[in-house]
């Protein structure tokens, strides 16, 4: 299973998201520290899940980091993350 697929499976299991986008941005970091020639080192994740309602930004990201602890300790060098609850203004939409 690719790392992206593993991330997706773990996040779906942990948060039952209503929206989940995982983008491999490794090509934008080719040659940087932590980059591997085969890619799958830098990801952008946008996740919308009901369980995030009422949690602070820090708490949301901590929950995601925890679900992906194995990947972050291993092959994944950087994870850019947007975690929101359904109905919240999507920060990525205006970025």
């Amino acid at each position: 299973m690719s790392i992206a697929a593993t991330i997706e499976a773990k996040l779906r299991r942990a948060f039952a998201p209503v929206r989940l986008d995982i983008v491999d941005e490794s090509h934008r970091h080719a040659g940087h520290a932590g980059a591997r020639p085969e890619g799958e080192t830098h990801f952008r994740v946008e996740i919308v899940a009901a369980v995030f309602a009422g949690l602070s930004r820090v708490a949301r990201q901590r929950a995601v980091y925890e679900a992906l602890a194995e990947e972050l300790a291993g092959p994944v060098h950087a994870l850019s993350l947007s975690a929101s609850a359904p109905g919240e203004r999507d920060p990525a939409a205006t970025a």
Partner: protein
Amino acid sequence: MTTASPVVERIRQDVAGNDVVLYMKGTPVFPQCGFSAAVVQVLTELGVKFKGIDVLTDPSLRQGIKDFSNWPTVPQLYVKGEFVGGSDIVREMHASGELREMLQTRGIAANTA
């Protein structure tokens, strides 16, 4: 995670002794990582005075700051001793105006819009 090691004690003092502290890769003038550079840019835009601490100069600090905050990545921004977040959170809070508001309510000078 563990009992207070010298590096954690040093972090505690830096975070307590400075209003705004950014743990980053590289220095504010020469960031070594795009995520660190993004936070420096936000703070510069807001005209906030901050202390930048380069974790690349010391492997024990690089690990220690992650243990201190229970947060697995760098950069990390602290305001008045409180962990605010990493680059995603700082950028989101800047885009929404929350970061300026938070700085002002804590009595830290920031440029007005």
